[in-house]
């Protein structure tokens, strides 16, 4: 019995281990390497095209975006890191060249506020649920005669058969597929009686 209870957990552990093994194998066998094109693309997609409406340098067909992509390529080829290239554009155009708020100063709020509220919401949800389920399990809970053991372990067989009979009668009335089975069931019932 005890073994049985642990089996699913064991299974999960095995699956996770296999996945981890595959991942580390793939990572070690062929370490990820960005091509120059990908690097240019990564940098360009973090910069806003200065003359367009809401387009990044990577996506814009405008002349200035094409020139900026060429500059990015040159600078990366000259050995600068991606961050250095971005910093270069920030020093020339200012903060508004960045296509999303940088992770510094005031603009961190852009990320922190939604994250904070979502976390707060999760915590609130947890407490609400705990509160509600605690109060429903309390002995003096309101109108709780029926759900102290809804796991059906304590549904006695008579109740269950009755419920099932009712369900099948309704399905039969409603849906021809179940009619034949219901008739059979009825017959058994009368024979039993």
């Amino acid at each position: 019995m005890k073994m049985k209870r642990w089996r699913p957990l064991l299974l999960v552990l095995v699956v996770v281990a296999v996945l981890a093994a595959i991942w580390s194998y793939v990572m070690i066998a062929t370490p990820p390497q960005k091509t120059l094109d990908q690097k240019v693309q990564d940098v360009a997609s973090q910069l806003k095209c200065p003359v367009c409406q809401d387009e990044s340098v990577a996506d814009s067909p405008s002349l200035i975006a094409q020139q900026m992509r060429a500059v990015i390529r040159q600078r990366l080829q000259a050995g600068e890191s991606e961050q250095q290239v971005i910093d270069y554009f920030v020093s020339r155009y200012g903060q508004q060249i960045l296509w999303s708020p940088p992770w510094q100063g005031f603009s961190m709020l852009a990320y922190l506020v939604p994250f904070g509220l979502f976390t707060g919401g999760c915590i609130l949800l947890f407490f609400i649920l705990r509160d509600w389920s605690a109060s429903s399990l309390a002995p003096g809970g309101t109108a709780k005669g029926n759900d102290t053991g809804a796991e059906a372990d304590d549904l006695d067989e008579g109740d269950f058969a009755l419920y099932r009979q009712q369900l099948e009668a309704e399905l039969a009335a409603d849906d021809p597929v179940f009619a034949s089975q219901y008739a059979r069931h009825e017959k058994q019932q009368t024979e039993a009686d």
Partner: protein
Amino acid sequence: MYFSDVGVIAIILALGFAVYTILVAVLGALRGIPALVVSAKRGVLVVAALLLLAACALVISFLVHDFGVRYVAQQSDLSMPWYYTFAAFYGGQEGSLLYWALMLSVFSAIFVFTSRRAPAALVPYVMATLMGIEVFFLFMLATVSSPFVRLPNPPADGVGLNPLLMDPGMLIHPPMLLMGYMSFSVPFAIAVAAMLSGRLDNEWLRTIRRWTLASWTIQSTGLLLGAWWAYHVLGWGGYWSWDPVENAALLPWLTATAFLHSTMVQERRGMLKVWNLCLVVATFALSIFGTFEVRSGVISSVHSFAYSDIGGYFFAFLVIIIVFSTALFVFRLPKLRPEQEFDSVISREGIFLFNNLLLVGIAFATLWGTIFPLISAALSKETMSVGAPFYQHVDGPLFALLILAMGVGPLLAWRRTSMRALWRNLGLPALAAAACAAILPLAGVRDIFANVGFAVCAFTAGAILYELWRGMRVRHKHGEPYPVALYQLVQRYRQRYGGYIVHLGLVLLAVGVIGSQFFQTQENAVLQPGQSMNVIGYQFTYLGNIDAINPGSETITAQLQIWHEGQLLGYIYPGRTFYQHFDNQPASLIPIPTFGLTDIYVILYNWQGATSATIHIFVNPLVPLIWYGGLLMICGGLICWWPARRRKTAIQPVAAIRRGQGRTVVGNENVTEEDDRVGVETRAEASSARTGDTQSSTGKRDEEAVI
């Protein structure tokens, strides 16, 4: 007397009738005089007829090219084909306001026609609220934003439609999206009516849910068409740029989705009443906010052609809505107590709450990102742009969680689920996810986030398909072939299986989004005639440029052949069109040949004379799945919404045996109050809930219990 004068008169008359309808409806409801309510119903119909007349007047003014009307002169010219001339109706602000008002009156009329099905006590208040909204629009149309203003000296020809709008998408995307925005006013009106009359029972819920489903489906269609249009016209290789106006259209969709899910909790458990009302009100407020944002120009966007000075009025309207709704809440709060308590964190209710948290979280993050430049400019004096990377980082993970919850949710029973039943149900989908996570990296998908995303999608698709298959298997055992079984399942339990179809569509769409976000590549080449570029095994051979000059515009296209394994597959013509009326503003012509599930998106960047072209190619894997998935979602929405056949046989409700026994046997629902349509639904739920509940004691029973 011009046609436009007919329009002016119709709008003023409609304004009068709308005000009359409000007064009569409220009076009829307060004093309980049925004759007044009937009169109000007729008032709604008259308003609809008058607005139809006004709309006809504008359409005729367009079609006869009456450039004496300022709006017609601004939006159309003689060279435009008749269908764009017709579509120019909603090409500008005044016309789109008229379209809004027209659609609102049409929906109000539909509500009146179907009001037999709605709770009678609510109907007058719903009509009054709808007409209240209508009054605002009619007031705008009659005063500051009339499409029928005449020019003292009519020009010989009009300015014409903005070239970005001269596209087949124009014929259907703006009307759909505007209709989507507008249609959220019906659920809002039903919610306000419920608060005014104090009736928030299950009958109310069914009415509001059906209307919300309709709005949801319309808005989904509008969003999908918008994405499709952006993809085919704007020429940046993508379909969704997190533009403020796109975000504004997404926000009410998100809250409406949250509402559709949490109503199920209210229906079955009598909980979350306040929360649901908040969601309905928020949905409507957000759709007005969207209109305000487009019109006011406070936030820069690609939809900038729509800027105008009426933003202030919309802002005032928004404030009125929020104040009015909040006051109603405070007034009604004592009536909104939950009827039942929660049982377990691991239950359908629990996951619905989590789903609501996620959807509202995504909506908030998106709204926050949209208005953050304003906040930043006001508080820290820094100019800031919030673009796609922000939303990808913030909304992306939340969407992944949402899809995960979508897979787990249907496997949980109402009230509580035993861990063991959960294991049983989750086993197969989890295996699918694990297989996906194992195979993809070996197959060369190297990005860890993309892999996690695909695995989540595999999990949810597995869970949904497993559910479908279980249902089909039970019916198959009763003698139905599998296809018939599937049809019967969907046909009989529309809400449930329609919902699964929507979920499946969203998963497909998510796979398409992950594919195109993570694996898009670009190629760029300057080509001379005869030269070619190779993209994923296809060869694009450049032949030369074609320059075509039409009245009012000039089009330059490059001619390219597509070759694959020595075979000529066809020709494509990427190009640019320049419109003289609009400072030679270019519009792109973008051929997008699809090979398998990969789109090749070809743009003409630059050219010299007839013999040199800079061709830019985006390789967009899996994008077609976005359109298929979107279509599936719309189909699912329609299935959920589709009215049920009215059956004649009255069925003895399950609750009867409960009463007979003096105790609840499987006490999940208030079946007594359901009508037969929902009764079927409820039984389906009851038995599947039982699947979870009874499995722990008797494994065999679940086979029968699925249906």
